[in-house]
């Protein structure tokens, strides 16, 4: 089976994060009641006309800058005709003659660079609900939502590479703010083209409806095996479109691939060409942040963070930027990373806090840095610092003040600590005796008791020292 080299390319569709649809002012929103986000234009009424959404173009330009594509001098649209009830006008407005961008690339973790053949803007189709074997229902809310289609060259050679490439494209789009890219909601979708190269390349099979990274990997793996077996037994691979059935864990044939001319592409006369001015392109490019891959390298090699932490930090642009902003006020990158990856993320699981992502945090990186410092120098114990963190979500106040107000400042000494230590020594006579007789580990019992009694406010270092003193002083 290893005689055949898989030749794999991706067609990725990303819904652009605009407020309104691509060609009309209906909301671009997921989850509304069916057919409540439709107007004469996106429902394909006679006489209705498309008007291009400026922001969709700007987001697409931003994506083009992020991938490093060469841009067309102007934006032109075409009509792609096919017959299905998800297409309100009988054609989809897309870009065929001259895509917005050509070239550009996506970098994989091992340094491999996957070239993009094209990226272009097009409109999404309506959502079809197949309710039985004999009918379908049409919901026009999705019709006309702006999409960015990104097509890679067929340069991927394995299921893992295909899945990784999709993940890399996704993180670039997410970091650039081009789209939300949630595969579960369908705001990121992926088709895969796959053939096997031996003496001559086999027919190309298109895999559709792969709505998770796992499906992409599984479907490609299955398809490589299926095609290898066909070729090995001397049978041809049909050129066709197949879909992944995640339950039966197999691909199956969907329909015969249409000839390109069947789409009868025609220039869209309702939309005159839009010139792409330099200043506009520059503005879009300026919105592209440092991309995840260079950040990943920096975090690993310069900051010495381990891979798991890095992936958590790179989950979103907000997360990475919060991390870096915090770092500007803190000393220890690993400590900051751990706080973000563990304690801060734990906040999102607490329903009463009503915070679900880094972007929704009400405190600032500076505040987090201060809190980390308080914990690092022992002013707040770890559990106390966690409590302060939760308080920071509710009241945007300096951690130092919150610590004091909540009465959580560390007990580093003084009468209260003294009293706690004496009580612990009296209550644990055996352990005290053991320490006196040189069993250092028995000290932990006494320290633990003080920590519990102080509700973790006590500074364990100070406790340890004070108990030793008391035990040495008193007979």
């Amino acid at each position: 089976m290893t005689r055949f080299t898989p030749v794999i390319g991706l067609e990725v569709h990303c819904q652009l994060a605009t407020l309104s649809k691509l060609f009309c002012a209906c909301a671009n929103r997921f989850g509304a009641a069916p057919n409540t986000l439709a107007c004469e234009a996106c429902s394909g009424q006679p006489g209705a006309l498309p008007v291009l959404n400026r922001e969709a173009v700007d987001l697409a330009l931003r994506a083009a800058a992020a991938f490093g594509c060469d841009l067309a001098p102007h934006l032109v649209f075409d009509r792609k005709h096919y017959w299905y009830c998800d297409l309100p006008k009988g054609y989809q407005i897309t870009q065929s003659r001259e895509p917005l961008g050509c070239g550009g690339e996506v970098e994989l973790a091992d340094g491999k660079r996957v070239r993009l053949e094209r990226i272009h803007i097009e409109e999404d189709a309506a959502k079809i609900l197949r309710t039985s074997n004999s009918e379908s229902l049409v919901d026009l809310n999705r019709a006309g939502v702006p999409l960015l289609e990104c097509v890679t060259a067929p340069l991927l050679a394995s299921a893992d590479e295909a899945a990784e490439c999709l993940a890399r494209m996704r993180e670039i789009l997410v970091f650039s703010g081009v789209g939300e890219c949630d595969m579960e909601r369908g705001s990121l979708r992926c088709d895969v083209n796959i053939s096997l190269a031996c003496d001559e390349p086999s027919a190309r099979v298109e895999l559709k409806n792969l709505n998770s990274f796992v499906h992409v990997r599984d479907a490609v793996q299955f398809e490589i095996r299926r095609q290898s077996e066909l070729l090995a037994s001397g049978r041809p691979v049909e050129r066709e479109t197949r879909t992944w059935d995640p339950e039966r864990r197999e691909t199956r044939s969907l329909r015969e691939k249409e000839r390109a001319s069947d789409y009868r592409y025609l220039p869209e006369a309702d939309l005159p060409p839009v010139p792409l001015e330099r200043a506009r392109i520059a503005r879009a490019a300026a919105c592209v942040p440092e991309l995840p891959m260079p950040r990943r390298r920096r975090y690993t090699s310069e900051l010495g963070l381990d891979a798991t932490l890095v992936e958590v930090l790179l989950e979103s642009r907000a997360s990475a930027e919060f991390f870096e902003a915090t770092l500007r006020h803190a000393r220890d990158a690993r400590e900051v990373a751990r706080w973000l990856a563990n304690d801060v993320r734990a906040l999102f699981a607490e329903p009463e806090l009503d915070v679900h992502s880094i972007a929704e945090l009400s405190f600032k990186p500076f505040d987090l840095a201060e809190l980390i410092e308080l914990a690092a120098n022992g002013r707040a114990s770890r559990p106390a610092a966690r409590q302060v963190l939760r308080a920071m979500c509710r009241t945007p106040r300096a951690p130092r003040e919150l610590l004091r107000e909540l009465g959580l400042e560390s007990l580093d000494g003084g009468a209260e600590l003294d009293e706690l230590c004496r009580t612990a020594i009296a209550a644990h006579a055996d352990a005290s005796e053991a320490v006196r007789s040189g069993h250092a580990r028995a000290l932990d019992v006494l320290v633990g008791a003080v920590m519990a009694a102080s509700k973790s406010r006590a500074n364990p270092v100070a406790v340890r020292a004070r108990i030793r003193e008391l035990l040495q002083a008193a007979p």
Partner: protein
Amino acid sequence: MTAPQDPATERARRAAALVRIAIDAHELPGLAAELDSALEAAKSLLAVPVEGVEPLWTLNEDAASERLDEVRPSLARDLVLANAPEQRDGMVRVPDGPGGAR
């Protein structure tokens, strides 16, 4: 199966199938002849030299206007569905039985 047809009829049949217009078999030869003569008439354009001439797809090439990304109210659902031949649960219903190629 129908008997093999002449190229003009075959061409008309393919065009009709491509553009989803059901045509009774007895009408096909007449339509094919009409299509044939229309195509023949159009051929006169081939005599016009167009080398180096950009195709003109749209007038007012400088008209291009984009709109701001603002949401305006959509149509009331009743209006969206008012003309639908069949509807169910706030959606347009279509027959979609097996056998039809997508």
